[in-house]
């Protein structure tokens, strides 16, 4: 396939995939569906009906939904080459990093190898961590040393340095997340259609920065300087100066008030990081749909689709979990479509 043919193919592919993204009406339909029908619609009946413990059932559902996302990714990767392909693969590495964090936490808690394995997600070979080797590592430093060769090199090296200095899991997690996002920004800068991709990655970074800022500053009570160091100051709306200004504020509400209008509208009225996250995810999902329809860059459309699909699958998982636990449908509804945004929807 020549370049323009593969771009046309990719755009068409993304458009076809995008038809399965959830509209607000579709979410309402799903909310009203009984569990059996819902699981049947998404081919999850086998898992739902299997006699698994709640924890294993949760893991099996997550795995199945992740598998469907990874299948979409493999289809979108086929016509891509060069740096666009690298960027999409890099984005999907976040799932491998979830596994890495799970491995670290499990190692710290000295769980058995079988137990640790049962918590890990199966991922395509292209992003998969060398689980067997990592499981056999005697400690976390050895584990991070093992990752210092290969695609996780820079993340593992920064994480190891931080762990050597601070020797505690929070900083390690934060270092991994920060390095991952720095990598995203770096890759977006090396793209041909970087203007388009930068907008997308800027939005992702804004969401992440704002959540980190609220969490580090007001939940973990980190100092403004340390909080700032843990952020990635390359967002679309939250640039370096704005972030420096925000980390110096002393209350959750004052941060929300000082946000740029676009972000402020999204999170206004929230009182904690969880609510803010819910609103940001909802809004991000809409922005992704806009990019899928209008972005001239096929790679941007593909990445936007994956981000939106990932959010949808998380919603679906939340919906299934809510129904499995017999939670009140109003509560689940609020979790899926934040009330403040329902009117706008």
């Amino acid at each position, binding site marked *: 396939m020549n370049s323009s043919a593969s771009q046309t193919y990719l755009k068409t592919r993304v458009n076809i995939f995008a038809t399965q993204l959830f509209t607000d009406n579709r979410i309402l339909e799903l909310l009203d569906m009984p569990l059996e029908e819902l699981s049947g619609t998404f081919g999850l009946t086998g898992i739902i009906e299997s006699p698994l413990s709640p924890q294993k059932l949760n893991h099996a559902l997550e795995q199945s939904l992740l598998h469907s996302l990874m299948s979409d990714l493999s289809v979108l990767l086929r016509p891509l080459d060069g740096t666009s392909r690298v960027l999409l693969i890099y984005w999907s590495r976040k799932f491998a990093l979830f596994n890495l964090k799970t491995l670290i936490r499990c190692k710290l808690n000295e769980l058995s190898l079988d137990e640790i394995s049962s918590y890990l997600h199966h991922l395509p070979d292209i992003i998969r961590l060398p689980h067997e080797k990592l499981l056999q590592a005697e400690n976390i430093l050895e584990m991070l040393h093992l990752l210092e060769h290969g695609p996780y090199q820079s993340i593992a090296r920064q994480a190891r340095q931080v762990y050597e200095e601070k020797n505690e899991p929070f900083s390690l997690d934060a270092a991994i997340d920060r390095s991952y996002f720095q990598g995203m920004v770096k890759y977006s800068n090396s793209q041909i259609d970087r203007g388009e991709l930068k907008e997308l990655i800027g939005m992702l970074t804004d969401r992440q920065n704002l959540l980190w800022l609220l969490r580090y500053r007001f939940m973990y009570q*980190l*100092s403004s*300087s*340390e909080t*700032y160091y843990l952020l990635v100051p390359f967002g679309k709306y939250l640039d370096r100066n704005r972030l*420096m200004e925000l980390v110096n504020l002393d209350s959750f509400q004052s941060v929300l008030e000082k946000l740029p209008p676009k972000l402020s509208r999204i999170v206004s009225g929230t009182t904690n990081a969880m609510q803010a996250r819910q609103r940001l995810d909802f809004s991000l999902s809409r922005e992704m749909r806009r990019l899928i329809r209008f972005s001239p860059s096929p790679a941007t459309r593909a990445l936007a689709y994956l981000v939106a699909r990932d959010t949808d699958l998380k919603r679906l998982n939340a919906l299934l979990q809510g129904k499995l636990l017999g939670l009140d449908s109003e509560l689940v509804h609020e979790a899926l479509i934040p009330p403040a945004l329902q009117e706008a929807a």
Partner: protein
Amino acid sequence: MFSTLPMKHLRIQLLTCDLPEASLILAELGVFAPDPRPILEAELPSIPGEGYRHLYTQARSRFDKIARHVAYTDTLDNKEVHAVSEADLQLTNDWLGEVWSDCSEFEEERHRLRDQLHAIDELEQTLDNFSNLNIDLGRLQQKSRFLEIHIGMVARTQVKQLEEAVGLAGYLLYRFLEREARTHVIIIGALDGESAELKSVLDTAGFRPLQVPEALHSEPEKAKTSLRKQQTDLQQRQQQLESRSAAWRTSIARHLSAAAQTLRQAAPYFQVQNAARNQGSLSAIQGWIPAREVVNAEAGLRQKLHNPLVLESRNPTEDERPIVPSFISRSRLLKPFSLLVKQYGIPRYGEVNPTLLFAVSYILMFGMMFGDVGHGAIILISGILAHRKLGSFTLFAVAAGISSMVFGLLYGSIFGYEHVIHAIWISPMSDPLYMLSMALIWGVGFLVLITLLNIINHLQQNDPSGALFGENGILSLLLYGGLLWGTFNIYQDGAFGVGAAVVALSSLVALFAYKLMGTASPPGERILVAAIETLETVTGYASNTLSFLRVAAFSLNHVALAVAVFTLAGMMEETGYWITVVLGNLFILILEGLIVTIQVLRLEYYEGFSRFFAGDGKAFKPLTL
């Protein structure tokens, strides 16, 4: 040699405590491949040895990590082979854990010393830089009542953000030296109780402090001497560490060899995995074994196991045929060819093993296409000289060289010279049409043989309709035969001939009818599909036969290239002539040699294997020690 060995499914019932020993005995025999299917699940619900396998995995991992640093001997004395108990494996694993811990400490110490030496090197650079800056270093090194000062290094990519982060805490960051991926910085600020906050940021940023010697301001030379002394001390410590490490390696080498033996003896029970099942003290182990080895295996087990056992063997059922592993005889002579066959696939159980046919036809075709006594001799000698690098492929090079030499004699060609030796058979360029017709005859023979093998394969797999009607079955062969006969008649008499037409048409109609019946679609589509598939059989045979023309084409090409080289050489003076001849021959040898090697492989894979060889079998992987 021509087919996979007949296999039996073996089930051994024995006491659970005998399982490790039984696995070891079977591994010593090297003829038993475990079958992990849960056939016995109903009677024997548990899988024994879970703890054993965990221990083995951990011990193996530790051993492999240690073995990268410590040399050991890994020979197994067959007289001392015995099953490893879980307790022994636990002891070995614990010991390996301690050894790995020591090994890691040595490694960490190495890293630390290297870092310290690096830091001194960095500090020397820093001091040189300071001397140019005319900064009062005494102020930097002394504790101040009002100022907090940190001198150190940070990753270059993180400097800007660190500068901004410490700025928020009221500190200034000053960059004064950049080396490789690190930047040397001074961080300075008012001492007002914010140190903990700053330290936290610096730790998160991976800031590495540089310790400036106290005497630096007043006595710089003394400070430099002190740094050199520290450097020498560190180098001495490095040497001591290496001596200790060497002594430690020597001290554990023998134990490590013993651990290697323990792990090798424990491996068979680990590899059995789900093929063994148990219910309390009663166990069973199941797997595949060549039929001729059943008696040996039973005798070996009964001789070495003291407790009673029940051994049952049976032929594979029809359903099991796709999963029965294929045991291919391991002839040393055929090894390189066997490896090339495996690149295409493993023969199914019961399928004809194409290795011998591949070996003979490959070598013959290579010789036909690259016939030259001189070039063949060079391939032969190079193969022998490079035998260490080529390994089992030496034989491949030797056989190809000999074949090339033999055909070189038949063609009368040596290093491209066509008139130095007399051709025993024919010089290719003297009658290209004859060469092409020979290649066609070879191709026809090859395709007929391949089709016969396909028919045999179908019959062996109890598939008579496949043998008769299938692609490359009896009817296809008859059709091919009829077409060839007719073509020969046209060549001889100018007419296709009634007999040939009857054979070709009747087989064509029968094939069409069979495909018509076998297609499940509406009538129009059914006729179309059957017609296309039948036509495909005809065109397939025709194109495959013509493919073999390349055998002659390359023999002509070889001569043509030589002619080109000699034409060029003829334009030169004597020295130039010989240089051109040598370089030209090298060019022919390397480039054409490579192309011919690939072309023959292509003929084998696509015109040969694809007609009769599914290549989707399972390789027989027995337990081994």
